[in-house]
C-alpha cells in the first residue's frame, strides 16, 4: 500500500469536515471482518449512549415509509451481487472521521459523487445524483445523529473502492438513492450505525440491508435464503414498539394497492346519489 497521502482523502476533506486519516484510524480498530457464526464470543464494547429514542425512530421510519418501497418487488428484482463478507469488511474499515459528529454529510456526499464518478466518464445521470443529494439533505434536516451516521456509512461503502479496490460485483448507481434511504431511515431508526461497525450480527444485517436495497442478493444465496437470513437479523421486525409502525405501513401499502386494483376492476352498481 502506498505510504504517501492518498489523493482520495484530499478530495474528500474539501469542506466535508474530515481530517486526513491515519491509515489505521478506523471506527473500530477491530480485526477485519469474519462471519458472525465463526466469531469467538467476546465481551461487547461499551455501547455509545443511545442516540435514538422511539419518537426519533418513528420519525425516521415515517420518512422511509413515505417512500412506499415495496420490498417484495425489490426482492424479486435482485441480481447476484457481492458477498455479505465483502460489504461487512468494508463497514468494519470505515474511517472514524466518517462517523464524527462534525462531519458535513451533505458535503461529503457531493464530494464522493463527484470524485467517484465525475472524472471517470461514468457519471450517473444527474437526476440520480440529485436524488441522492436530496435524500442526504433530508437526512441532515432530521437532525438525527443515527440517520447521519447511516448515510455516512453508505457513502463510505460507495467511496471505499478508491482505497480497497472494486467490489467483486459493482453496484449500480440506479439504486443509490434507495440504498442510502434504506440505511439512513429504516435501519438507522432501529440500530445505531455505530453498532453496524462494532457488532458482527448488526454488521451482517447492515451489509444484507445494503445489498438488498442496492438491488443485489448476497453472493452464493438465492432469494429465499437471503430473505430468510435477513428476516432473522431484521431489527425492525424484532422491535415490538416499532413493529406496529411497520404493520401500519404494510397496511397502507395493501389498502392503496387494493384500491387501485378495485378501481381497475370496475365499481359496483349503486342505487342513488350521495
Amino acid at each position, binding site marked *: 500500500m502506498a505510504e504517501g497521502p492518498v489523493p482520495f482523502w484530499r478530495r474528500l476533506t474539501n469542506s466535508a469536515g474530515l481530517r486526513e486519516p491515519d491509515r489505521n484510524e478506523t471506527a473500530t480498530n477491530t480485526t477485519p471482518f469474519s462471519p458472525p457464526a465463526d466469531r469467538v464470543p467476546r465481551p461487547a464494547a461499551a455501547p455509545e449512549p443511545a442516540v435514538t429514542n422511539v419518537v426519533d425512530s418513528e420519525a425516521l421510519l415515517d420518512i422511509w415509509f413515505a417512500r412506499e418501497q415495496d420490498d417484495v418487488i425489490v426482492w424479486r428484482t435482485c441480481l447476484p451481487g457481492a458477498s455479505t463478507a465483502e460489504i461487512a469488511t468494508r463497514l468494519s474499515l470505515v474511517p472514524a472521521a466518517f462517523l464524527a459528529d462534525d462531519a458535513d454529510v451533505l458535503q461529503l456526499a457531493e464530494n464522493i459523487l463527484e470524485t467517484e464518478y465525475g472524472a471517470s466518464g461514468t457519471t450517473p445521470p444527474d437526476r440520480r445524483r440529485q436524488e441522492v443529494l436530496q435524500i442526504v439533505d433530508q437526512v441532515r434536516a432530521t437532525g438525527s445523529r443515527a440517520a447521519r451516521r447511516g448515510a455516512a456509512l453508505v457513502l463510505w461503502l460507495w467511496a471505499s473502492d478508491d482505497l480497497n479496490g472494486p467490489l467483486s460485483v459493482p453496484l449500480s448507481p440506479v439504486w443509490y438513492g434507495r440504498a442510502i434511504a434504506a440505511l439512513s431511515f429504516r435501519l438507522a431508526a432501529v440500530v445505531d450505525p455505530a453498532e453496524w461497525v462494532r457488532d458482527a450480527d448488526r454488521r451482517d444485517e447492515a451489509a444484507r440491508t445494503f445489498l438488498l436495497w442496492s438491488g443485489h442478493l448476497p453472493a452464493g444465496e438465492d432469494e429465499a435464503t437471503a430473505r430468510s437470513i435477513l428476516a432473522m437479523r431484521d431489527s425492525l421486525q424484532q422491535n415490538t414498539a416499532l413493529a406496529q409502525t411497520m404493520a401500519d405501513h404494510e397496511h397502507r401499502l395493501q389498502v392503496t394497492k387494493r384500491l387501485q386494483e378495485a378501481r381497475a376492476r370496475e*365499481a359496483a352498481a349503486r342505487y342513488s346519489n350521495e
Partner: protein
Amino acid sequence: MSDPCAPAAPSPDLDDPLALAEYAAGGAVALTDAERWPTLDEAGAARLGAVARHPLAPTWVHRTGDRLTADGVARARTPLPVDDWLAGHLATARKLPAYRRVADTLGDLPSWPTVTRDDLLDDVSAFVPLDADLDRMIEGSSSGTTGRALQIPDDIEEVARSFHLLVRLVAEQGIHWRPDPGRMALAYVVHQRQAFTYTSVISSFGQAVMARLNLHPSQWPAAGQRTGFLLHQQPQVITGNPTSLAELLQPELVAGLRPLALFSGAMALSLGLRRDLERAYGCPVIDVYGLHETRPIAVSADGGPFVILDRRVHVEVLDASGRPVPAGQRGEIVVTAGENPLLPLVRYRTGDFGRLVDVAGRPALADLEGREATRFLALDGSLVPSVDLTQQLQAGGARGWAVHQAADGSMTAAVVGGDAAQIGAALGRLLARPVTVTTVPTLLDLGEGKPRRYESLAPGA
C-alpha cells in the same frame, strides 16, 4: 363472439376537447358476468339482456354488477343491528392506525378528535381497520360534487344493503315496493355531460333490473329515444339529484311514468321542485342527506327537517373549535358513521351546516346548508350543472375551488392546486365564455365549509 350486452369498445371522442378518458364507453370493464352477478339465474339474465339490448337503450358506458354471493344476498337484505353499536364502533376505531398514537386518550365520543375530508385524502388507509376483509373492497370515488376526488374503500355488501334502505324508506311511506318482472326496479338518473351508465340486476331483490341513466340529451341521439326507453322500462323507483329529477318534469315523461317514489340526493332539493314532482307523479319525494364517506345520514319526506336514520349513524353539530353548539343552534354537521366496515368514521366533519332539532321524538337536521344545486348559464343560453364543472376542475388537478357567475354571466374561479390555465380553458369551452381563474394557496382561503363553492347569479340559473 362479442357480447351484445357489453358496452361499446373504448373510444374517447377525439373531436371533443372536454371528453375525459374514464368516461369512454367500455373504459372500465374488467370482470366477467359471473363475477358481477355470482347468483344470476336464467330469468335474471334474460331481464338484464332485454334492457341492455333494448333498441332504444343508450350506449352503456360501463358494465357493472353487485357482486353478491348467495350468502351476501341474505346479509344485504338485513339491516345491521343498532343496539349499542356506538361502543363497539369506537372500540373498532380505537385500533385504527389513524389513532394508534393517541388511542390511550380516547374515551367516550366527545373525547375523540374530529376528522376532515383532508385527513382521508392524506391517508385513507389509516382509517381502514387492520383486520378488514379487503376482498370485499370496491373503490368508490366521491367525485360528484365535493372537491378533489377521494378514493373511498366501499364494502360490497354495504353498497347492496343501501338499496334495501331505499326499500324501507318507501315502506315507511305506506308503499310496498316489491320486484315486478315487467318493470325496471330502479332508475338512477343523472344529467351531466359525461357519466358512467350501466344496467345491472339487483341480486337481493328478485334479480330485478336497475340502470344508471344519463338524461343529458347528448346521450340520446335519436328523437324520442329517451322518453321511449323510460316509458318502456317503467322504473318503479327513480333516484337522482335535483338537476336530473327536474328533467322528469318533461310533459311526455309525466304523462307516461308511474313511479312508486322518487329519491333525491347529493344536492339541496328546493321546495318548489319537490312540490312540482309530487304534483306531477303523485308519489312521495324523499330527500336523502348523506355523503359517500358516511353513507346516508338523514331523510326528509315532506320538505321539513331531515330525520336522522335509525341506523349506525350518530350526528353532532359542532362549532368551529369542535365544541357542541347549544341545542338548536347552527353549526357544522359532524357524523360518526358505522355502516361501512371498511371505513368506520368517528366525528367526521361534513362541511355542511345545520341545526339539530327534534321531530316527533327523533333527532333531525334543520336548515341544512352546503348542498346547493347550482347551474351556470352558458353563452348559448343552456344551463350547465355544476357537476360538469367539477369533472373538469378535478381533471385539472384542483383540490378545492370557488366558482362564481355574476348576474351579467361573467365567470371567475378561485382554485387551490391544479393547472389554472388548463382549468380556465376547459371551463371556458364548457360555458362558451371566458373564465378567469386565480389560484389561492390553501382550502382555508376559500372560506368556511366544503372545499368547493358554486354560485351563479345569472338569470335562470
